[in-house]
């Protein structure tokens, strides 16, 4: 495309980003995942200096197990955030769903897979209900899900009954968070992931070239491939040197990759972004906005339930605290810290994983240093505030500099 004589200086500048612009783009959040990775490195260095167990294979494996629940719940939260909405019920839903599973499995002797399916269905039904209330009656999602938070916590107590706690001993359920794969299987996972990513890149590149679309990104794609391969190999090597690759990590990764695909590559995902960006524009374009909203809240409830199942599996129990405490807030804080906008329309499912890693690292590191809950909460709050401020500033800058 050739420049016209009417091209403004801004347009001309867009073709040749300067170093200054690249720096600004990082700050403005276009490259927000880079910003988060940088943050992770800083966090790792800080904790490693004070406590050299932090980067040990043992602790990193623990860290991965610790973030599974938050990460899974955050996957659903990302979708809600993409709409520019909020779901305050995810913590309570995860607890209630896990309790449903535990009661069916322990008290009623259900098959483990059926019990898990019932838990997931519970989460999906709750999400669908809340999404319908929110979209059909135009009640703020904040209020609908706040009501849900209270109601589902009550339901959790109700389901658990007098004992208030149920121990899970079905190995099919407890295995979800406690199975580790052998070294060989770990390397097979690594090979499959790297191979699939490489194949996807090559196929996409070939199609673009075949369609005659100029593509100068070959080098950046190779860089991305090498980076991903390095990360995967390093991760498997570290996990293998301890207990092996945990099933929980594979479950989390599968959901992150799968839901990222849905968000970025499918018609449904495109519509989620459109509704989050400009609901009125989406409506006029013929997108059934309310259907998208209900679907997104259903996803959120479903992911919360899956996170709850993993938490129960890891704890070997469901109790009155399941899904409680700061789980909800951390699950929302994670994606926001990692760059998914609270204002809708911007973000990615990767931020669920990255955010969980940031929050998990801080929490894990402070545990290693035996800091009190008081300090942990204040630090986590500070990090969240910082991340939201960066998001808000980036948004303002987009608005002031975005248009000529």
């Amino acid at each position, binding site marked *: *495309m*050739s*420049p*016209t004589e*009417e*091209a*403004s200086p*801004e*347009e001309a500048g*867009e*073709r040749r980003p300067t170093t200054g612009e690249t720096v600004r783009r990082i700050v403005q959040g276009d490259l927000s995942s880079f910003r988060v990775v940088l943050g992770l490195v800083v966090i790792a260095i800080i904790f490693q200096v004070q406590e050299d167990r932090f980067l040990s294979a043992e602790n990193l494996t623990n860290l991965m197990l610790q973030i599974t629940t938050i990460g899974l719940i955050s996957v659903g939260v990302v979708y809600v955030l993409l709409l520019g909405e909020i779901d305050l019920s995810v913590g309570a839903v995860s607890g209630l769903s896990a309790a449903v599973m535990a009661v069916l499995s322990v008290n009623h002797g259900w098959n483990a897979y059926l019990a898990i399916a019932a838990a997931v269905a519970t989460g999906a039904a709750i999400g669908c209900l809340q999404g319908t209330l929110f979209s059909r009656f135009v009640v703020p999602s904040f209020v609908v899900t706040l009501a849900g938070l209270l109601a589902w916590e009550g339901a959790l107590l109700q389901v658990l009954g007098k004992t208030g706690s149920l121990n899970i001993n079905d190995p099919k359920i407890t295995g979800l968070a406690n199975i580790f794969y052998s070294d060989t299987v770990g390397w097979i996972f690594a090979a499959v992931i790297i191979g699939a990513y490489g194949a996807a890149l090559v196929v*996409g590149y070939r*199609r*673009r070239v075949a*369609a*005659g*679309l100029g593509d100068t990104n070959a080098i950046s794609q190779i860089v991305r491939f090498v980076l991903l391969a390095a990360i995967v190999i390093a991760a498997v090597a570290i996990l293998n040197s301890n207990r092996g690759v945990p099933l929980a990590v594979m479950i989390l990764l599968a959901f992150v990759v799968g839901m990222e*695909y*849905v968000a970025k*590559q*499918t*018609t*449904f995902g*495109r519509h989620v*972004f*459109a509704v*989050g*960006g*400009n609901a*009125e*524009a*989406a409506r*006029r*374009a*013929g*997108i059934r906005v309310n259907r998208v909203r209900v679907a997104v809240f259903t996803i959120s409830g479903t992911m919360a339930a899956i996170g709850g199942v993993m938490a129960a599996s890891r704890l070997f129990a469901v109790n009155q605290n399941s899904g409680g405490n700061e789980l909800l807030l951390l699950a929302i804080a994670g994606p926001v810290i990692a760059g998914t906008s609270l204002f*809708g*329309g*911007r973000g990615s499912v990767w931020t669920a994983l990255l955010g969980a890693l940031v929050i998990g690292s801080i929490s894990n590191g402070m545990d290693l240093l035996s800091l009190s809950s008081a300090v942990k909460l204040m630090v986590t709050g500070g990090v969240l505030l910082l991340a939201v401020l960066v998001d808000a500033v980036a948004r303002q800058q*987009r608005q002031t500099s*975005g*248009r*000529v």
Partner: protein
Amino acid sequence: MADGTPLLELEGVSKRFGPVQALDRVDFAVHAGEVIGLVGDNGAGKSTLVKAIAGIHSPDEGTIRFEGEEVRIKGPQDATELGIATVYQDLALCDNLDVVANLFLGREQVSAGPGQVSRQLDEVNMEHETADLLSNLAVTIPSLRSEVGTLSGGQRQQVAVARSLLGDPRVVLLDEPTAALGVPQTKQVLELIRRLRERDLGVVVISHNLADVFAVADRVFVLRLGRAAGEFKAEETTEEHVVGAITGLGDGGERDQHAEEGENS
């Protein structure tokens, strides 16, 4: 131009919002390959007329004919199916999506093969078609993958107009396409409107800016207080005449009406 069966014809269309008679028995027609400037003061009913055609507000009375056949437009979907595309003043673009995504919003192409199951987007094809369409219209945008929010007002307007063409419409309604644009950008948009006419589309341009209307329109249609207050051939009239019809103070053109009656209703 302007002969034969009109593409789109409105007859005696009225619309009332509570006590306000927004449109009062308006007759209006658009032919293929013709640009009509729809002008009038604030509250004259320009937007209501366009919304009646676009299916946002169904008229209370009157008939709408498309290519000579009577049609009922009950919703935006009906209008789109007939081949009526509307570009609203607020453009209805998603600033967070890129040019390609905005162009194909609501009618995304799904890739063939295994991705079909998940309704995978055919990004390559969509980008290809976007590039074709924009170059046909001589619209220049730095990168089809830049977010629409980062484009200039003129570029956004051109993206919005280009998007309206994807459904292969026969009639395009443009609501204030040059409002809030600088001089060079206005020029680009007017140039684009002329290209729509060359494609044999019927184009309706709402505008406050008479200079822009005269630069591009074949006919000027004046609304005043919800009524047709004059219809002029652009080359046979002057801005003064049109202003007279708009304000109701001067010669009202071919159909001199006392629009003041409308105030009583």
